[in-house]
């Protein structure tokens, strides 16, 4: 076997031209691997082996495997029932099963049972349980157990429309880990001079229920309009197919009224920093709530189109338009109160998070 290996190495050097010429001429033709390993000599460099050569010394050629890349995507493993398949692939590329491939990774795996898992505390035998337990806790916490917090101003804008100019905000903050989080949401609007017309705040427990969506449950409190209301809330928030950010919630008030909301937006990247965001919010009610001017069914719609420039991911000023429309009974209540049922606003603001 050894002389054969030696011979194969030699013939390879002689034939593998011209690339071999670039390798050092000192590359010995008489350098068997075991000597090379001991540092006694430098073996011949392996080059792409012409298949015919490989066929010449199939039993001993240590380079036979080098033609493997030619087999493209072929999965190299052989297994008890599929060894034949592997062989045929090798023949296809002009190779025969080389002798040395009979062992090592060429062998199929057995089906011995896996051992049962012990406690990963072997270091205690060296350093003692007391010394190790703290660092072991830390290890687990540091690798996947982190907690984070974020405050996000989705919308914070000045609104120019018929009548007094107004303002609007829509913000969210959270604290927690990957799965469980505490979420606070707030949104509201008003007119300069008239103060805040409507404002709400929600405190929610959020839990990841899949790779993209969180389930959220908690309370919502409407600070205005008067009379204020408190709601029990359940909803969802997440990333839908086609990259739509969506959220929805049902609200049950302390007076027994049921409201609903659906919201969504899409970030269309025009360049890496200019982003156009179409956005929609729909509010629903299961019944008329005359005290707050809400009618049953679809009560109002907000459609927006905002163009922002990301100076940084965290800070993006924007301009846009917003079209707000009260629908059905809600519109009737508004007309009766002398309010507009429809407004188109030019908006400018900033989207920011930290």
């Amino acid at each position, binding site marked *: 076997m050894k002389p054969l290996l030696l011979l194969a190495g030699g013939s390879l050097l002689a034939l593998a031209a011209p690339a071999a010429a670039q390798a050092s001429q000192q590359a010995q033709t008489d350098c068997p*691997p075991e000597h090379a390993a001991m540092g006694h000599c430098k073996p011949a460099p392996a080059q792409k082996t012409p298949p015919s050569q490989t066929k010449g010394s199939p039993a001993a050629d240590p380079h036979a*495997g080098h033609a493997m890349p030619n087999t493209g995507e072929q*999965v190299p493993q052989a*297994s008890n029932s599929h060894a034949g398949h592997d062989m045929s692939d090798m023949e296809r590329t002009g190779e025969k099963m080389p002798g040395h491939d009979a062992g090592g*990774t060429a062998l199929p795996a057995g089906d011995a*049972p896996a051992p049962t898992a012990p406690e990963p505390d072997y270091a205690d035998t060296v350093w003692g349980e007391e010394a190790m337990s703290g660092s072991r806790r830390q290890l687990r916490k540091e*690798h*996947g157990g982190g907690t984070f917090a974020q405050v996000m101003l989705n919308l914070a804008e000045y609104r120019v429309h018929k009548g007094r100019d107004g303002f609007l905000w829509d913000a969210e903050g959270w604290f927690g880990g990957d799965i469980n989080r505490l979420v606070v949401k707030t949104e509201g609007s008003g007119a300069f001079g008239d103060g805040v017309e409507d404002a709400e705040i929600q405190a929610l427990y959020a839990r990841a229920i899949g*790779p993209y969506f969180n389930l959220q449950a908690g309370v919502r409190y409407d600070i205005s309009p008067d009379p204020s209301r408190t709601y029990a809330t359940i909803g969802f928030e997440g990333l839908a197919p*086609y990259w739509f950010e969506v959220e929805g919630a049902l609200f049950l008030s302390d007076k027994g009224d049921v409201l609903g909301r659906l919201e969504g937006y899409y970030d269309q990247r025009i360049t890496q920093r200019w982003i156009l965001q179409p956005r929609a919010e729909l509010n629903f009610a299961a019944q008329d709530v005359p005290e707050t001017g809400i009618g049953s069914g679809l009560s109002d719609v907000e459609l927006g189109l905002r163009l922002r420039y990301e100076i940084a991911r965290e800070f993006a000023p924007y301009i846009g338009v917003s079209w707000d429309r009260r629908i059905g009974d809600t519109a009737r209540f508004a007309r009766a109160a002398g309010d507009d049922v429809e407004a188109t606003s030019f908006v400018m603001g900033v989207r920011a998070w930290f």
Partner: protein
Amino acid sequence: MTISKLDRRTFFRGAALAGGTAAFSAWLPAWAQPVSAGIARPLPTVSGTDIALRIAHQMMTIDGRESHAIGINGTVPAPLIRLKEGTTVRLSVTNDLDEDSSIHWHGLLLPFHMDGVPGVSFPGIKPRSTFVYEFPVQQTGTYWYHSHSGLQEQMGHYGPIVIDPAGPDPIASDREHVIVLSDHSQLHPHAIFRKLKLQGGYFNYRKQTLGGLVEGKDQPLKDRLMWGGMRMDPTDVSDVTGSTYTFLVNGHGPKDNWTALFRAGERVRLRFVNASAMTTFNVRIPGLRLTIVQADGLNVRPVAVDEFQMAVAETYDVIVEPEDRAYTLVGESVDRSGMARATLAPREGLVAEVPPLRPRPLATMKDMGMGGMDHGKGSTPVATDCPPEHAAMGHCTPAPVDHVAMGHGSGGMNHSMRDMSLAPTVKDTATVQTISPMPVDRTGEPGQGLDDVGHKVLVYRDLMALTRNPDVRAPDRAMEVHLTGNMERYMWAFDGEKLSEVKEPIPFIKDERVRVTLVNDTMMGHPIHLHGHFFELVTGHGEFAPRKHTVQVQPGGKVTFDVTTDAIGDWAFHCHLLYHMHAGMMQVVTVRPRTGDGA
């Protein structure tokens, strides 16, 4: 105080100088604008059998800009540790930080309690204390060392190790240079991690745009819709990119132009270490053929290539024979958002042309784990008699399933991209964004974006051990580990469970031989590292399979290796992308004596 003032003045002068030069050469790409004529200083070296190392905060200057860093003995990278096979080395490591630290000797075979992973192999090194590592040096080659505490590695806590053989080196060379590639950011690593957690694609400034669509760049509309339907971004190649990273050679930026000197006609051995936190590099030296002679510290049969991809934590030794002129050493980041650059030159001050960055790659269906369906090209021989359980063990590639059934051509792909029944060992958690429907062995491919570069690129199947492997038994059993992740939540794990969630380690018995298949269920390459062992890649070389300590599992692909678990103790097993590990992509591997051997 005085010293820091002086430093600042020097720094400002340097900056002014650089600014002036930049004005003249504004047409040059950023990485080619000179700050210096080249820094030919090699890494500081420590050697012997009694070595003292001190971990401390320090400043470092990269491309004329000062940064905060953590270094060892005052340098980043940490000094080259030069050891000798057959000796026993004592390394006294003093931690001058205000937090725990550690040093892990990457690729070294040693008693597990000297491996340096806090919480697995030892308690860590407390602030202002000294820990003495002591172990026999029983191997040779190029390795490296780094912190295994928190995110210190990103701040500069890494350095190279070279172990010289007791006898003559089978790899002859006239000269050698150690080349440590790494990535550096002005942002604190915890800030980087937080940004990724809050917005997965935070650092990707090369996404597809409407502007690009109009210009006919990137994917056509149909593909964009299909990928959008799956919530997959084909531009998501690197999590952290050149938008914040500067890529370094031996601690120097591209403008610093670190220079390796040689004499024409010499055989020069370059010992490459990828000590990056997050960056896969594609390495080439235009004009020079690179003969790979060693991978992960172990000698391989020489392979001549024009380029090779270097996963994080891999090492490669390369022989080059340069002529009497300068060459540019290019380490292009896999997403091509930047490059590490150095010069090989016969004299100081010489530079060679710096090639521009090549266009960034886009992920393909194969990167999403649909390689097995790629049979249209006829490049994938597949078995028609491949039962799923064999395919799962990596024994064969099953025949591709019907394209229509997989929902090709429309958004109907959604369901099949997360079919948990394809991976029964994976926990159904929020960490699992996708399950590769048809992962294939990609060890015959050169790596993402390197299929069509027009020259020879190394593939894993080119690698072959120089000598017969010490253990050529058949594996006793086979097992599978899935690499899972969620880019949107920035969660990463093995088999769907983060280390913070796992209930038990991965168990082995001493001297067991196990065939492990790593299945990548994500669209990103993962360099997987097993501590304390080498494993043989199952790439068709039988008893001469290449042995490695770290292996890159290409996006949506899989890799199989055989390992002899001959080192008793507990060992870390993890993705070597620092923030993936920090997010939970880590496990503990236990190797216990056989029953009856005694504990």
